[in-house]
């Protein structure tokens, strides 16, 4: 069967160890259009990775039952694309690309495959990692939420992640903007003595593709001192369909999933569904009624999700002693804030309902621009509100401070 391959590739392929051959074929299969994680898993388990690859590469894809069943559901053009791609791919080069220092390639069914995922009903056939796999043997908590989060939500995610990390919990998230990024940042901020950073980033792209670009630094920090996990081969951009698939990995890698902020129909809700399928406890952070960013979490609570007011609630839910962690993070208590003036109180009242612009606060309070601006700047310096672009919003401190 390998005689169907071009000579050079063939020779190089023969020099690989049997384990490497399987890995190379799985990487090659993962590159094929129309062949998603579920089909890849079935090819691996039912037909064998090597057989699947060579059957498809030599045009005998009809021999591979899982692929036939998958292609039957798709447009005929996908078959042509898949065959064309398979006939030109050099799987040995694909494998070499994954073999970078610090990177790991784990094939489902082998001993090195992370135990947590091995039990998962939708475990990826091949998993790419970068960093310390030991993190996965710790208790893990997934912290997820909307990309367009409020300041208070981001601050809460960050402090919760930090406290969880301090208690020895690995924080799993997706490296997206908003809540994801904030929770990674919180976990990274707690540098254990020479130990790894308790941040697990599960991404939809190849490990060498940074998405979103704005999180380049965060991406590097998690990869260098935490753990990065992906089922996407190196160099592949995150197509839209890969994000829901990624969400199932977050659910599968977590002992509990905490939703910090989410709208009714958000990507976080997909992670919640995946967690429920796996029997992973779902927790939600309550938000102000009516705030768009908290509609999803409030609905989750109404539907019976566990309440996550702080890290202690989460630790309790996963059975970790909340007092295991060190002293609270703020060793120096924030300076005693002076009593808010009436103007400041009325401004806080407006901002607590929803993030607002200067003009909205002026209209809602009936005060002059100067009064409102002064109150806003005083509150901002005191850390009770934050500003992003034109929008003022209460911080976690401002929300709990009253």
């Amino acid at each position: 069967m390998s005689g169907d391959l071009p000579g050079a590739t063939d020779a190089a392929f023969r020099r690989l160890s049997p384990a490497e051959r399987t890995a190379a074929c799985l990487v090659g299969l993962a590159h094929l259009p129309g062949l998603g994680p579920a089909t890849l898993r079935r090819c691996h388990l039912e037909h064998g990775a090597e057989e699947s690859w060579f059957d498809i590469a030599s045009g005998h894809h009809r021999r591979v039952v899982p692929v036939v069943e998958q292609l039957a559901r798709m447009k005929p053009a996908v078959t042509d694309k898949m065959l064309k791609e398979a006939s030109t791919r050099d799987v040995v080069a694909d494998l070499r690309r994954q073999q970078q220092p610090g990177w790991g390639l784990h094939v489902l069914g082998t001993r090195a495959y992370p135990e947590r995922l091995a039990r998962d009903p939708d475990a990826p056939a091949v998993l790419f990692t970068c960093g310390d796999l030991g993190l996965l043997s710790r208790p893990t908590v997934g912290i997820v939420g909307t990309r367009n989060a409020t300041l208070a939500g981001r601050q809460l995610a960050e402090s919760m992640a930090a406290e969880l990390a301090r208690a020895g919990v690995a924080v799993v998230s997706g490296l997206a903007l908003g809540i994801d990024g904030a929770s990674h940042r919180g976990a990274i901020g707690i540098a254990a003595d020479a130990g790894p950073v308790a941040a697990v980033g599960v991404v939809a792209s190849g490990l060498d593709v940074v998405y979103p670009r704005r999180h380049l630094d965060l991406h590097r920090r998690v990869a260098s001192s935490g753990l990065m996990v992906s089922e996407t081969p190196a160099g592949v951009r995150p197509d839209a369909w890969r994000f829901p698939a990624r969400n199932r990995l977050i659910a599968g890698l977590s002992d509990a999933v905490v939703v910090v902020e989410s709208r009714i129909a958000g990507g976080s809700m997909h992670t919640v569904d995946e967690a429920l399928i796996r029997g992973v406890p779902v927790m939600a952070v309550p938000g102000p009624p009516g705030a768009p960013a908290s509609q999803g979490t409030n609905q989750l609570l109404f539907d019976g999700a566990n309440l996550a007011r702080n890290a202690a609630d989460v630790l309790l839910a996963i059975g970790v002693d909340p007092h295991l962690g060190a002293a609270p993070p703020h060793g120096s208590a924030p300076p005693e804030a002076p009593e808010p003036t009436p103007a400041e109180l009325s401004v806080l009242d407006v901002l607590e309902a929803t993030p607002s612009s200067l003009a909205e606060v002026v209209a809602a309070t009936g005060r002059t621009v100067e009064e409102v601006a002064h109150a806003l700047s005083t509150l901002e310096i005191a850390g009770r509100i934050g500003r992003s672009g034109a929008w003022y919003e209460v911080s976690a401190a401002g929300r709990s401070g009253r």
Partner: protein
Amino acid sequence: MLASIPSAIVIGVDGIPVTVEVHVGNGIPGLTIVGLPDASCREARDRVRAAVMAAGITWPNRKITINLAPSDTRKVGSGLDLAMAVGVLVACGELKADNVAGLAFVGELGLDGTVRPVPGVVPRVDAVAEDHVVVPWRSSADAALVSGRTVHGVRTLREVFDALAQESRLWPLHPVPEPDVVEQVVADLADVRGQDALCDALELSAAGGHHLLMIGPPGAGKTMLASRLPGLLPDLDARTAMETSRVHSAAGLTLGGLVTRPPFRAPHHSTTMVALVGGGSESMRPGEVSLASGGVLFLDELGEFPPAVLDALRQPLEEGVIRVSRARFSAVLPARVLMVAAMNPCPCGEAGRPGACRCPDGLLARYRRRLSGPLLDRFDLRVHVDRPAVAALLGGEPGTPTAQRAERVLLARERARERGVEVNSQLGGAQLEEAAPLHIDAENLLKGALTSGRLSARGLSRIRRVALTLADLGGHRGPLLAPQIAAAMALRVDVTGTNGIAA
């Protein structure tokens, strides 16, 4: 036989005197125009001949040469027609040179002998050295704006011929033409409900000459607010009024008398660079910026303008003039505008509100990237406009009327004049230091903002100027207070900021 008749052409907004020299001699009959005429100017040959014959005067069947001096400047347009016709009549002996002496002529000729208006009558009349100027009757009101000139409005070449045929030069007495200008009605700010903070920003902009950028979703009333801004501005002073009139005349706009109210120009975002800043053809037509000089230039949908066009605005905004140069000519056009711009931050209408905006981050970033930092920096005021609350729209209290705000603007501008500038935005560094000392609280506020990186050194003086205007409007004298500084900072939204999405 030789005649030389004074006239003028326009380049940019300036008139340039031109002497039309006509020589009638022996040779093959015909008319030649030399002295760098362009196509429209050379076509005068046929117009002049037809008009002379239509006036009932015999066309001299001789060799006629017309020279337009200075002959190294390109002559564009038909404004020299009348001068050429009179020159031909003098040179061939139909008119006496003495009767024509001391007169300049401006106007285009029709084939039937009518004298038609041309663009730029004001700068042309201003340019000629003669005290008496013959202009098309329709333009006589505009021409009369130039002081120290006696203007004779004429309708036909025959009228000119009849008047110049006698020594007494009896000019026809035509009634002053009715200007067919539609008076620009500026709506009142009292109709604007539930946008008090925006109206304040508008007043601030008018009082201090601070360029204003409004960011907000469609339907928030950005255009409506901007169109009400001219109502807040005081009447143009004599010098600016004359300058604006010259620009409008050069661009061929009907004036209907001296332009005394600040103009409002709102070019569409498909406007080309030449149409915006001026130039283009060899007549160096003034662009929208110059037409708005002394008034308001409103750029709606700022993000849709091509970046190159917007960047061309930076130098004029700083200097107050545009220097347009081409290979052969250069022109200096006025550009003292108050720039007001509007833009939508994103398509969903929530404009990046944290937790509510549904737009992908990339879309927001793409929108912001279109605006260069240096251009954004020119806007002293960058305010966010929201859709007003429903309650305020229906049955809310009417806002402060324009007249009341305009009065405050006038007083604030009076204060600026005491400092030796027209508006606070023109205050230089040293002047600002002297005019706007800081209260200790205000200084601490600024220090805090500078150290935390929320304010740049360049932003600092802009904030101080705006705060000074705020103080002027509030009738406050003495060092600037913290609330004024805070308001100035809050009215300068960071457009390139992360807009609610954590970086």
